């Protein structure tokens, strides 16, 4: 409370100090993340606009109902829940790495940073599986009067409305769905996945620097905080990707 009082009385704009009480790098990381939030926001809002402009949109519970090694079992929401929990847990390990950094605890930083990297790689592996499953999983679609087997790509969408009473190899034949679905799904989850990938690379660079005692010599682990901000942002974006593509 004494600090809060002192903060109130400080003349933040009188010069000679940061008016935001943070170092340059951290402030700029915040502004970068804010601009990145607008980029992701624009993508998701554009997706929403197209979705609102269509009379029919694929049901996510039908599209995303597979789980690795579960064959054709109908498991809606299961795999994406796993991915969500992987990302939440890796966010927690990252906070713990930052916390260890505050205490100049090199061993703790190495341990938690390594777990964060493992979580990031696990998430990317899940995403790779999901993309492969969508692209290579073919479904019977009635196109131009013929039944054709197509997967989900940026130019094809087999997830249209069911053609009443038409079956093909025991599967309901559908009409082609809105083409924009694949483009938005692969575009936005791909852009997010690219952020995860670069976050993993940043964390690996941080891990190597920690192990080489770079921060120990510098006297502080503030770089871990900045990497942490980026990593949490990736988790934050996933909250909204998860919301827009899988839940609603």
């Amino acid at each position: 409370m004494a600090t809060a009082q002192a903060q109130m009385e400080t003349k933040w704009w009188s010069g000679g100090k940061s008016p935001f009480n943070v170092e340059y790098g951290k402030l700029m990381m915040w502004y970068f993340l804010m601009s990145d939030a607008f980029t992701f926001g624009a993508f998701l809002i554009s997706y929403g606009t197209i979705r609102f402009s269509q009379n029919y949109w694929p049901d996510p519970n039908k599209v995303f109902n597979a789980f690795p090694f579960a064959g054709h079992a109908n498991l809606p929401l299961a795999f994406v829940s796993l991915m969500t929990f992987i990302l939440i847990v890796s966010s927690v390990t990252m906070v713990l790495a930052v916390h260890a950094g505050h205490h100049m605890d090199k061993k703790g930083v190495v341990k938690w940073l390594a777990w964060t990297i493992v979580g990031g790689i696990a998430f990317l592996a899940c995403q790779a599986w999901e993309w492969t499953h969508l692209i290579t999983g073919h479904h019977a679609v009635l196109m131009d009067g013929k039944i054709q087997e197509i997967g989900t790509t940026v130019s094809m969408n087999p997830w249209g409305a069911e053609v009443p009473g038409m079956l093909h190899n025991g599967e309901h034949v559908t009409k082609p769905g809105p083409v924009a679905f694949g483009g938005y799904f692969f575009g936005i989850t791909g852009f997010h996945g690219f952020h995860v990938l670069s976050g993993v690379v940043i964390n690996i660079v941080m891990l190597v620097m920690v192990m080489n005692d770079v921060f120990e010599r510098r006297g502080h682990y503030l770089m871990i905080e900045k990497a942490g901000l980026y990593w949490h942002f990736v988790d934050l974006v996933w909250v909204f990707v998860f919301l827009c593509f899988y839940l609603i």
Partner: protein
Amino acid sequence: MEHPAHPEVTFHHAPGGDETVKRIIKTTVILSVITLIELALGFWIYFMHKSPDYSHGFVLFLKGVIVILSLAKAFYIVGVFMHLGDEIRNLIMTIVVPLLLFVWFIAAFLWDGDSWRTLRNTHGKTKPATEQQQVEPAAKKPGGVE
């Protein structure tokens, strides 16, 4: 701190002890529980969709609840994990106030998408949109009944 790494920073945060770890664990539990509630609501919607005469209004309400829960998750991630809640007010405001643009951004564009659909559904035949004109066969008379 013994080594003031950045002289421009006036108040250095004292490194947190056990209570910081407790706060992290508490936030983890909150995030997990919110996610589980979201999943439960998602499954509820899934099972409602199975019956042909489900209430669209109620599904929309459940989706609204899921959106609010996601915003709560975002609040906890930014406030606790990213420590924005511990920064001084000036910094918080320069991050949060620009994000208010999203309010207009979301409302305007979703409204636009909806209006696009309504226009196509109601005037699609009499006032064809440009893309529909392109797919119509050239020989067809304008305004002809399909």
